[in-house]
């Protein structure tokens, strides 16, 4: 053969072999009757509620599992023009902070309330990462009912994790920051002047009301995530830390130098004792505490100026450090409470610590050093064992209640199942792509429902029909009831989900509020019937006491309003029937609409900027005569001699 023929032959062989050389991709992942396992027939209900953080949309999503259907977007920290959250006069105080009204935040993590380490699903807690706050959502109404700001904190990422009876919800600061009177300091004085505060917010066992009970002044590390001890480790809390290098610039390099950072173990029962004994110090701070009142259908915001601080360098036996490789992200406790899993996102192994060994190490003073007098335990003394070659970039671990752990791997884009006792890797499944948090119904509790698992991913790429540069974040649902994890469903999500928690629908679905009894409405502007509908002027304030019921507003003809008046529409929805909200919108309003639930009163403030007749209408298709549900408001020049009049149904 001549040279030419050889080249052609070599080329053909190369072409033939090329596809065979490339390892098999992800496309082959679906097997068996996945569709029937996620099919929820029309009219049927999902088995689980999944409360999903919205990340940078500042909201929560309510998703049904196994269908993956989005049931609701629940406004928390961000304004929500579609229902007036943050625009109505009643809801504005909910978004008040020590910085004034803040219309947005970044909600990362969900905690569903528990009793005896099992979901009771009375409340969902969520964290605001940017302007540190914790919110409480009532799961009977799916409404945000309380928001408390966290002072001395910045980047409220290590939050809102809860103790097993929802005694406390915690807030560990990601950024350490200067506090108190010493805040105008140079950034390079980080080590001297910056503090990392951990906040314990108590939760009223009956009503859920939050109270900032105390803060622990910790070293200026970055606090990343946390989990409470449970069952046998009840009384302890575990916080992952990174940047124990205490760098203040180019952290991607400077905070990744040490082989080990720490899991900070906090004996909160001990801290409670110190608080009771009066060992805390009261510090000047400023933070907002906002509460929603279901009787008045409105919120009140209060500014509080003190916080109780505990100094663990002086008060012994509160804080211990467990060395953990390397820049740990998630720290998770297994259902028994015996094992603490640190997911070092840059580590090659997953360390599993033993609570029993930790207590023994403390007892025997098995320390390798200390940080300002707070003991650092010996790694080997606390270690149960290491999971070898689990994958790349471990982030978070959840549990199935059958002795297995499931760890998300960001870099290798997979979830790895392993046995907690033997540390043996049992199975791995790809995720699409780069999974962040994972969620198993009941997964962080003492009683996981090891049936499904959801991967919440950071990268979407080609998973759905493309929608330009900005894509929905993808999630995958897996069946984990068998030995092998099985991919069932791939669904797009709202916002940018981080953590999510799921619980059986039966816990709450029969106690949902359907409407608010009108006789219980204590809003000062509420109307109990159509007869009191009226308009009142008070200086340049005009108060419209309005009713809405299918299919009219009363009053619906209003005259005598002037340019520049502050007009308040107090709209009461008189319906006493499930799923009959009414909306209210007026032309040119610089705010949003109101969406008023049956029996509720909401107020929209509107300042007319010009002369004219302004239409208003119901925005929620309420009835066959919804398009007739409208009215007119006449605006005259300032000082015009048009009397204030109002009417409904008066034909000429």
């Amino acid at each position, binding site marked *: 053969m001549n040279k030419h023929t050889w080249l052609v032959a070599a080329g053909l062989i190369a072409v033939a072999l090329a596809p065979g050389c490339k390892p098999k991709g992800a496309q082959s992942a679906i097997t068996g009757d996945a569709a029937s396992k996620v099919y929820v027939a029309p009219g049927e209900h999902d088995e689980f509620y999944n409360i999903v953080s919205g990340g940078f949309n500042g909201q929560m999503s309510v998703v049904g599992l196994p269908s993956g259907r989005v049931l609701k977007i629940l406004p928390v920290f961000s304004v929500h023009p579609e229902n007036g959250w943050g625009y109505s006069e009643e809801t504005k105080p909910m978004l008040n902070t020590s910085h004034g009204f803040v219309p947005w935040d970044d909600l990362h993590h969900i905690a569903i309330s528990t009793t005896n380490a099992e979901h009771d699903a009375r409340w969902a807690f969520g964290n605001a990462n940017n302007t540190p706050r914790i919110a409480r959502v009532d799961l009977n109404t799916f409404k945000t009912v309380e928001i408390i700001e966290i002072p001395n904190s910045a980047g409220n990422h290590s939050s809102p994790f809860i103790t097993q009876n929802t005694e406390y919800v915690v807030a560990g600061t990601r950024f350490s920051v200067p506090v108190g009177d010493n805040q105008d300091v140079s950034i390079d004085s980080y080590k001297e002047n910056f503090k990392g505060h951990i906040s314990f917010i108590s939760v009223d066992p009956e009503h859920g009301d939050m109270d900032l009970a105390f803060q622990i002044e910790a070293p200026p590390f970055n606090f990343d995530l946390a989990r409470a001890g449970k069952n046998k480790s009840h009384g302890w809390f575990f916080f992952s830390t990174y940047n124990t290098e205490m760098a203040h610039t180019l952290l991607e390099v400077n905070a990744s130098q040490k082989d080990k950072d720490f899991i900070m173990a906090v004996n909160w029962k001990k801290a409670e004792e110190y608080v009771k004994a009066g060992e805390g110090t009261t510090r000047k701070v400023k933070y907002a505490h906002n509460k929603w009142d279901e009787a008045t259908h409105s919120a009140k915001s209060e500014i509080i100026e003190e916080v109780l601080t505990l100094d663990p360098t002086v008060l012994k036996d509160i804080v211990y450090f467990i060395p953990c490789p390397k820049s740990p992200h998630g720290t998770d406790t297994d259902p028994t409470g015996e094992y603490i899993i640190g997911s070092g996102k840059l580590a090659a192994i997953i360390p599993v610590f033993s609570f029993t060994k930790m207590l023994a190490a403390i007892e025997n003073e098995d320390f390798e050093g200390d940080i300002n007098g707070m003991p650092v335990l010996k790694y080997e003394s606390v270690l149960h064992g290491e999971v070898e070659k689990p994958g790349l970039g471990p982030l978070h671990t959840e549990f199935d209640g059958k002795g297995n752990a499931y760890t998300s791997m960001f870099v290798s884009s997979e979830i790895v199942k392993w046995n907690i006792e033997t540390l043996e890797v049992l199975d791995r499944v790809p995720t699409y792509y780069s999974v962040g948090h994972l969620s198993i119904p009941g997964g962080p509790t003492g009683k996981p429902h090891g049936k499904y698992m959801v991967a919440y991913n950071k990268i979407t790429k080609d998973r759905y029909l493309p929608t330009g540069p900005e894509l929905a974040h993808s999630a995958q649902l897996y069946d984990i009831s068998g030995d092998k994890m099985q991919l069932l469903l791939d669904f797009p999500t709202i916002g940018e989900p981080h953590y999510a928690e799921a619980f059986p629908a039966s816990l709450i679905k029969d106690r949902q509020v359907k409407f608010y009894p009108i006789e219980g409405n204590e809003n000062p502007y509420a109307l109990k019937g159509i007869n009191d509908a009226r308009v009142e002027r008070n200086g340049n304030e005009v108060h419209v006491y309005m009713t809405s*019921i*299918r299919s009219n507003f009363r009053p619906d003809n209003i005259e005598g309003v002037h340019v520049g008046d502050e007009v308040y529409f107090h709209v009461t929805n008189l*319906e*006493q*029937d*499930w799923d009959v909200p009414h909306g209210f919108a007026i032309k040119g309003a610089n705010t949003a609409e109101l969406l008023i639930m049956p029996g509720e009163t909401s107020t929209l403030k509107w300042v007319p900027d010009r002369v004219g007749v302004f239409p208003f209408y119901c925005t929620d298709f309420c*009835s*066959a*005569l919804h398009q*007739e549900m409208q009215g007119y408001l006449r605006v005259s020049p300032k000082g015009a001699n048009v009397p204030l009049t109002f009417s409904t149904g008066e034909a000429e």
Partner: protein
Amino acid sequence: MKTLSNSNRLLILIAALAIIPAYFTPLWQISLWAPQYPEGLNMKIWIDHLSGNVDTINGVNHYIGMKHIGEEMFPEFIYLKYIIGVLIALGVVAAWVGKRWSLYGFLTLMTLFGLAILVDMYLWGYDYGHNLDPKAAIKVPDMTYQPPLIGYKELLNFLAYSGPDTGSWILMGGVALLFVAIIRDRLKNKNQ
């Protein structure tokens, strides 16, 4: 005059006392279902008041110009409790008298009472279903909305049901006992 056996007199007494629950339980019910109301709307009629989703039914019905259902619309609520009281008293008297005529007399009275209630319900239903507001938003030519007297009926998007409720069922059970008494009395006579 034929005298009744003690056991038949007891049956009359039970039938009379079976009217008493009419004071504590609903007598009649009207239910409505529509595509928008899969869970159904329900109105219960008691001896002197209404309960259930009356406001919602009024809200829905105002579109077709039906009258607002309210307690003031039923003068029966004022006097029904006395009529029923008299019926109970007469039943007790019939048992005490213990003659065949008193048994037949009480049964006739109860039957007439039942018929009167049905006629009354029909007349109310006729008026409620036919006497519509001429300014109603929705007017369907030749359509009337008289609810069914007993049983089911389709009215536009609604399926309506009307029928006796707990109190009436107990009362009818009492009336059935009167029939039992009559049959027993007849058989006894035949055997003699």
